């Protein structure tokens, strides 16, 4: 079915964002966007009011009618209404889950992966071997009030007693759902199928129990799909149905409402598959930082629940330490005063940096929040643990074992950033610097930011199930993603290896689209920016003897790279990137790097 227009909203915890996509001259493009405060909480307590306000803003901008009173006009007739309306939601704290598995690093981790992949925040992982005594687990479960629980454990046909024991612990704790006292807590069982009956006997009466296929039917394989789908269904049926106004909103949409991170993850997974690339996507918000990755065709998502730029900014400070934040600040600042300033941002989270100094501090904190979140992600995105692998004699020299991280920075093709501090940085070079400093990409990596954070809306659009809509909706999502959603910053070219200070580490010969050429010499410790638009640039990259740019030590690469708003960033600062501790040296280096990419207005920095 042809779609002339698509309206999509994302109901965030503070803002509801609406976008209008239209098909013009055979291609889908973002036409307008509008936003309004989310209205889930008192005094409004009806999410649809915020949606209508955001849509009204689009109506005004587009100069055409989309609403008929309190209803969205659908399908489009002449110049009124839209063909489909869809939405995602993370309002009211998003989806909060507790998961349980027998062995923490095996079924526990698989359950956590399924819950995170579905877009939830995992409040705790209870496992038979988590080191807590049964009464401690029970106490913890009683304290938490999750939206739902995912219980797994055991391979099909294996021992049942461990997973039934977990069910008995759940039953003894008798957990209550977060929203409302008048319904039973949804529990999904995705464990050993031999235990179905005992699980029903233990939890059937007390909870709203759903049984799906085992998440780990055999040790060697994860089966996350059925659990993820069930989480989405229950999110709609239970959690969303309890939140004010959602029943009405659900009746408006042409596809089920998805949790915001679930939709973003779906989109990233799809892009990686369609283009056969490795992708890392990050969304840094006020309270949490979500990281999505696809390496070796395996999707992973983590949410660092307390690493964010406002509500949990002090937690970034606590976890990273003041010294790690200050290492990115090219200014001499009183340490105690700085902690009070950061504290004030936490208690007044909606403020924006007015002075340059405030902006620099905020971007330094962002680097650390991103670095810590990515560290957690790398530790979680690993190969399945507990799997026996056949070894050859050559493996004896490289004992990686099971549970090796899937994240290989040299393989990374595209790094996409979103969230206020990245998407709305006054200069795009600031976004590029934050991404490079925090993620430290190796070899050749394209950098981009989500212009207005529309990945959630595009994700739900790409995920429409209805047969008559799905193909066209997917096409629309992809077209808008490439043309309007991503702002291409450029490409980071970072050789990796050992070298002497200031030694030549990479030579590059570039041929631009207009046939002009440029030769680059990159020395250790240097950061260079070459202006180049988002066009293919033919490049021959020759690393020094002990350096690697992707093909092995000293091996040259002939390839095509893309510029962007920032251009090409040649990063010779090494991996891992060490910033000197000594103040004088650190400040001079930071200033040099900053100048190299035209990061801040220098005159003011000198002040």
């Amino acid at each position, binding site marked *: 079915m042809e779609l002339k227009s698509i309206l999509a909203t994302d109901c965030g*915890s503070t803002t509801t964002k609406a976008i209008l996509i239209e098909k013009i001259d055979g291609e889908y493009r973002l036409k307008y966007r509008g936003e309004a*405060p989310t209205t889930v*909480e008192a005094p409004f307590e009806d999410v649809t009011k915020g949606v209508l306000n955001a849509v009204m803003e689009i109506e005004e901008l587009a100069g055409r009618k989309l609403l008929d009173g309190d209803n969205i006009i659908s399908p489009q007739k002449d110049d009124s209404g839209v063909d489909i309306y869809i939405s995602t939601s993370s309002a*009211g*704290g998003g989806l909060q889950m507790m998961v349980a598995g027998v062995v923490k690093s095996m079924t526990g981790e698989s359950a956590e992966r399924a819950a995170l992949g579905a877009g939830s925040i995992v409040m705790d992982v209870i496992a038979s071997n988590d080191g807590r005594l*049964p*009464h401690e687990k*029970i*106490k913890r479960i009683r304290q938490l009030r999750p939206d739902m629980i995912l219980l797994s454990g055991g391979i099909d046909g294996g021992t*049942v*007693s461990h997973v*039934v*024991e977990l069910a*008995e*612990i759940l*039953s*003894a*704790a*008798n957990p*209550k759902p977060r929203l409302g*006292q008048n319904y039973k807590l949804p529990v999904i069982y995705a464990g050993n199928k031999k235990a179905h009956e*005992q699980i029903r006997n*233990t939890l059937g009466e007390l909870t709203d129990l759903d049984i799906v296929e085992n998440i780990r039917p055999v040790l060697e394989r994860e089966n996350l799909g059925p659990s993820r789908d069930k989480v989405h269904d229950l999110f709609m049926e239970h959690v969303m149905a309890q939140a004010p106004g959602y029943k009405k909103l659900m009746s408006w949409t042409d596809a089920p409402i998805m949790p915001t991170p679930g939709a973003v993850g779906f989109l990233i997974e799809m892009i990686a598959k369609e283009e056969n690339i490795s992708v890392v996507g990050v969304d840094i918000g006020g*309270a949490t930082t979500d990281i999505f990755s696809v390496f070796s065709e395996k999707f992973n998502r983590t949410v660092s629940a*307390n690493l964010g730029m406002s*509500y*949990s900014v*002090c*937690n*970034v*400070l*606590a*976890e990273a330490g003041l010294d790690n934040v200050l290492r990115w600040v090219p200014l001499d600042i009183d340490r*105690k*005063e700085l*902690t*009070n*300033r950061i*504290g*004030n*941002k*936490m*208690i*007044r*989270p*909606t*403020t*924006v*940096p*007015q*002075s*340059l*100094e*405030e*902006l620099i501090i905020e971007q330094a904190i962002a680097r650390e929040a991103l670095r810590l979140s990515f560290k957690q992600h790398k530790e979680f995105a690993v190969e399945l643990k507990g799997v026996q692998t056949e070894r050859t004699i050559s493996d004896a020299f490289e004992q990686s074992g099971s549970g090796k991280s899937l994240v290989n920075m040299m393989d990374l093709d595209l790094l996409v950033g979103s969230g206020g501090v990245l998407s*709305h940085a*006054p*200069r795009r070079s600031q976004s590029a610097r934050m991404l490079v400093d925090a993620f430290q990409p190796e070899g050749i990596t394209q950098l981009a930011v989500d212009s207005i954070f529309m990945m959630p809306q595009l994700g739900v659009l790409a995920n429409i199930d209805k047969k008559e809509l799905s193909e066209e909706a997917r096409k629309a999502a992809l077209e808008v993603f490439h043309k309007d959603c991503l702002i291409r910053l450029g490409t980071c070219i970072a050789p990796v290896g050992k070298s002497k200070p200031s030694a030549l580490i990479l030579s590059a010969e570039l041929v631009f689209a207009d046939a002009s050429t440029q030769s680059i010499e990159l020395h250790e410790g240097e950061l260079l920016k070459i202006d180049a638009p988002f066009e293919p640039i033919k490049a021959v990259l020759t690393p020094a003897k002990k350096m690697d740019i992707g093909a092995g030590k000293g091996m040259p690469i002939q390839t095509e790279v893309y510029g962007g708003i920032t251009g090409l960033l040649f990063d010779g600062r090494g991996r891992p990137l060490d910033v000197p501790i000594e103040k004088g040296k650190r400040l001079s280096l930071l200033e040099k790097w900053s100048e190299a990419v035209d990061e801040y*207005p220098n005159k*003011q920095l000198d002040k």
Partner: protein
Amino acid sequence: MAHAYTPGLKVLHQSDVTKNRRLPIKGEVLKNIDDIVTPDVIVATTDLPGNVQMVKVSNLLNIGPGDINEAMIVAIGDHVKKDQVIAEMAGLFGLFKSDVKSPIDATIESISDVTGQVVLREKPIPVEVDAYMSGVVKEIIPEEGVIIHATAAFIQGIFGIGGESRGEIVVVTDSRSDEITSNLILEEHAGKIIVGGSFISLEAYRKAISLKVAGVVVGGFNYFDLEPILGYTLGVAITGSEELGTSLVVTEGYGKIHMSDRTFSLLKEHENHFASINGATQIRAGVIRPEIVIPLSKDQLTQIEDTKVQEVGIGMGSLVRIIRAPYFGKIGKVKSLPSELNKMESETMVRVAEVDVNGEILLVPRSNLEMLETN
């Protein structure tokens, strides 16, 4: 007239204050509509299910889980005493009997022949909810609690710790700019709420705790002083459950900041009056700010209309506080709200307000303003 939506903190001479006093789970409500209550009166009560202990009976008796029912000598629902035998198994030829004793006084909740476990539950934990402030019961929430109403002076702070407390107000500093120093905190302040100006140091706050002062209301406190008080670094502003004995309500923010004139004057006006305070903060989903509630007696009531300012947002002439550097803490009046975006020193393009601070006109991002609601 241009308007901007901006968060605001209340400093009200007179306001209708309602408090929802609910049990965490269903229970019994002890008061009726129109009952007059004082802060310590219990309005609802319930029993939380007791703590649970699990005993691996089959392991302890060295039997299969399926044999557990043969070994049990107590049944589901039975009350057992600590050290009472709950299961036993005869050994070889009836000799070497082994048994399992209850580790606690409890009720047998379940016996599992799959895992061989017995679940023992301790006696219920009583939970009571008090009225928190003086007032009248306006509404009953069946089986859950009550809604209490009072006409009161009402002040919101920006950050607090220590949860609910109550006591008589004593203003200990001469002005809103003075610090509460240790020597100003005296033994006679035990059970009272002390009010000061711009700052309280860690040392002074510790003295207040040691002298059992009920609460401290002050303009500023150091963020880094929270760690020694709480025992951990406060990463996310969710507070209120700390058991400190002395609640702290910070009215302006972290650092040394003069208490706003209106807040200080209002508290001064109510010196020696009884107040309820809540040192609780939650800055996500369902914002909770710390507060000071001073219920008014009939002769204190005036004809002031409750403020409606929050619904309209800030407009020309609104009284605002600047809440971010470089003008942090300054209070002024909105002169204009230009509609076009303005470039700040940071190069951020934002909507701004022109704020008149003692005759000096400052250009400030609207989101860096906090409205002061007053009457």
